[in-house]
């Protein structure tokens, strides 16, 4: 099998990779630090939640595209993984939506009978 030199260069030189990995690790550490500090900051809940989700997603994507090499691999690997990821995400979202609905609130966590009836009628 002949290897064209062009192919090897395609994903950056090897020393470059080493540097990239170190830099990303530092970035991940910094992002984690930001998350931890952020939860104690006096912003509205929805702002913090969005920020946490975004930061976690960024860390997630850096690990899969760089550490797990998807950036340099054939696109099919990415597609394959994202099928599973999207399906899992969609299922989690749907389950939370169903269980979060008014009709699904367990009676034990509602304080009074009048609340139960009011919820039922407010459909």
């Amino acid at each position, binding site marked *: 099998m002949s290897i064209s030199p062009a192919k090897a260069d395609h994903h950056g030189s090897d020393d470059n990779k080493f540097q990239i990995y170190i830099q990303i690790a530092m970035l991940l550490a910094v992002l984690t630090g930001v998350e931890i500090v952020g939860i104690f900051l006096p912003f509205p809940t929805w702002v913090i939640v969005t920020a946490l989700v975004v930061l976690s997603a960024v860390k997630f994507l850096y690990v899969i595209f760089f550490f797990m090499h998807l950036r340099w691999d054939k696109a099919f690997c990415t597609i394959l993984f994202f099928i*599973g990821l999207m399906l899992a995400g969609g299922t989690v979202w749907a*389950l939370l939506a*169903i269980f979060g609905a008014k009709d*699904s609130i367990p009676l034990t966590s509602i304080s009074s009978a009048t609340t139960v009836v009011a919820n039922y009628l407010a459909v």
Partner: protein
Amino acid sequence: MSPPSSPIFRASNNPIMDATVKTNLIAKDDHAAPTRASVFWRPTSKTGLVSWLTTVDHKRIGFLYGIFALFFFLVGGAEALLIRLQLAVPNNDLLTAQQYNELFTMHGTTMIFLAVMPLSAAFFNFIMPLQIGARDVAFPRLNAFSLWTFVAGAIIINLGWFMKEGAPDAGWFGYAPLTSKTYSPDHSIDMWVMGLQLLGVASIAASLNFIVTIINMRAPGMTMMRLPVFTWMTLFTAFLIVLAFPAITIALVELMMDRLFHTNFFEVSNGGLPILWQHLFWVFGHPEVYILILPAMGIVSEILPTFSRKPLFGYPIVVFSGASIGFLGFAVWSHHMFTTGMGTVATAAFALATMAIAVPTGVKIFNWIGTLWGGHLQMRTPMMFALGFIWMFMMGGFSGIMHAAAPADAQQQDSYFVIAHFHYVLIGGSLFGLLAGIHYWFPLMFGRRVSEFWGKLSFWVVFVGFNATFFPMHFLGLNGMPRRTFTYDANLGWNTPNFLATIGAMILGVGIGIYFSVMIYTFFKGERIKKDPWDARTLEWSLPTPPPEYNFAVTPTVHARDAYWYEKHHKEEIAKEKAVHAKEDEAHGGIHMPFASIYPFVTSVGILVASIGIAVMDPGHKLVVALVGGVIMLAGIFLWAHEGNEGYHIRPDKEDLNS
């Protein structure tokens, strides 16, 4: 060519021995696989029990899946007949309520997990690699592991029949809190849980193998859009399995933790929500029914073109519909839960999604009709089953669409209407497709053709019996007869349909009996045929019947969809290519074959022992047995990893090279 030595049974005038020796499934080429000087024992015999326990050949593994599946199909059928006998007349006392509960639970579990799924797996294993021009699957030992773990799961699930606790009795869907320790204190449910977990492991491992095989081991020129539709459906089914089984794995883990360690997943007194079980189960359960039907749809998509003497109508649309059905199948699970009070929004959303999924299914049916239209139809037995599939599956689809309307479902839920629906799609759909496939590919696998008369007779008796059994159930359901009840009173208007259904079940039993007898007879004494008896279109038919161990003497180059049809009509071009490739293979030293291995079997044995420890043993002995099993399993995995994946080389038979 030397005759194969030592068949499974010792030499005698035993006709079984004779047939297994002559079927050539066991050993066509007695090329001695060279032993390697190494620490590891390389099984080299081609016949005998050990050769079956250590085989990594996808064709043998497929055959074993088929044998086990057909055996358990008969077991499940016997369970069904007992159910029907009990319900033949009102207030019957043939069975107690407890026995009845065990029977309908095991009938469902057996038919779904131990009959239809492994029968589909038999075809995935045997046929798919041949259709893509490969010599085996990507990971042959993992393939063997899947088979033996399936057997282990089948054993665990059925152990209860032989023990005082009896078989599992909480339905094939095991709703919480009925399956909790409080309401099911003995080990029958533990065995159900562990058995299903093992079956899940087996299915996922096999499906990972099939995905990699189809994506990565196609012959040159076999682009994705030239794949036979059966291979496409194998791919989609494999995706469904790897993505859906984790949900039931988690549900079963949570149930097992409740039962063994007193956690609170479904324990109401501590905040548990039993409805969560239903959700997790059906997140798996709905894709599962598409896992059951897609292979049959794939088989039908092969049979119709062959016996219409036309290519499949609308190939890209049929493929795309298969993908859509698979994908949408994950979005509809709560249509099994319309009556659980999820709220208007959730109910409406799932009803809409369920109606949507009928569209790609309908599209497929139109494409099958388009394939038949204007074709030169040959009404052979496989074609009869395939046509029966189209019609019967449609009827099942109609009752399914009726369920999709949530208000109507409020009456139909838990009634015999549901039983009618799913038996129409499962028997009229899946089973007809699989029975068609057995007839269709029998000549390829065993080199013998099934008699047309007896094949068609078995079809008609099955067809009549099946409809007689399940058509009345639509009316029983609409008239309010509930599922899963062991008897009924005489004054509810249900007597006649129930009696008719039982008669139908007897006829169906006779039909299946004829079918099986014909198959067994043909296996031993059927008319021998040479290659390609149906003048078919796909690559598996380019092989001798039965295929040699190495599949293709020369890896084919694919030029078009319906690759073998192209080969038959461009003989010179193909002959030239073959000569070139044959020379290349010679230069490599021949065809590379994987060594057989005992370690997948050992690993599965370890898993079986560990599962018995967890599910069957009493608390005093659980840990010890589980640990022993764990050690055996780890030893199996360790030695499997260390023996490496070398192989040996063989040369194809001269006659294969020139055919």
